[in-house]
């Protein structure tokens, strides 16, 4: 498997460390309800198909990368730097 690091280009999968679905980047706000934390930490859509997930270019440039990937074919359709997202959303923020 090869992943295109937005900074380094196409690289072997062995340079990367996987985290999981990219919902993990959207951290709940302080004081969010327990159900929100449960959802954030544990529950997953776990699709058989397209997913965006998180990879760390550990044997590389140290960028965290959001990868759009098909879990059935392993085909990768897009990658971008996690840091390049729009301002992270805060789920479950209590006003």
């Amino acid at each position: 498997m090869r992943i295109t690091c937005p900074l380094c280009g196409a690289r072997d999968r062995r340079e990367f460390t996987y985290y999981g679905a990219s919902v993990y980047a959207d951290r709940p706000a302080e004081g969010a309800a327990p159900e929100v934390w449960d959802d954030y930490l544990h529950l997953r859509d776990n699709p058989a198909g397209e997913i965006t997930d998180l990879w760390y270019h550990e044997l590389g440039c140290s960028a965290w990368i959001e990868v759009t990937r098909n879990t059935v074919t392993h085909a990768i359709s897009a990658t971008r730097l996690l840091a390049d997202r729009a301002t992270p959303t805060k789920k479950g923020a209590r006003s």
Partner: protein
Amino acid sequence: MASLIEKSACDGLLPRVAGGTVLSELPAARVTSVAPFAGKTRALGAALKEMGLGWPKPGEAVGTEGASILWSGRDQAFLIGADPAPLSGLAALSDQGDGWARMQLKGPEAEAALARLVPLDLRLSEFGIGQVARSGLNHMMMLIARTSETGFDIMVFRSMAASAVHEIGTALDAVAARGRLTS
């Protein structure tokens, strides 16, 4: 008062020769990591220009006589062989000169030997002179730069110098042995 004796990272390990290729330790040099502070990218670029350098793009090195700056990761570069003082206040600066074993691998078997260890496309057409990459030397973190058609500078963590020398040496020997095959 007595002074402390310096010891280089590859002390007693190098040089190593196989076929026409030599693995040797690069001379000691000042290495400083440079990470631009928020909003200071332009000023940092200007300061580097003053030094005859410039902020490197990902995968590139900018060099001048005696000094160079190598892209070394996300928003980070290694300034080598120059005093970082002019960059003070513009970027996070951190001494790295003692943290790395810096080696040069040069010779006709260099690319083939590295192909035993490095998951990078090192063909000259893809990784040309002046290009830099962060990758792995087998299981070790590595920074590699191509300095000539047959020459590479390689940096691994200082503590892993012995493993790196052993692995590159073994690969070199195997490549050299293939060269001795007649058919």
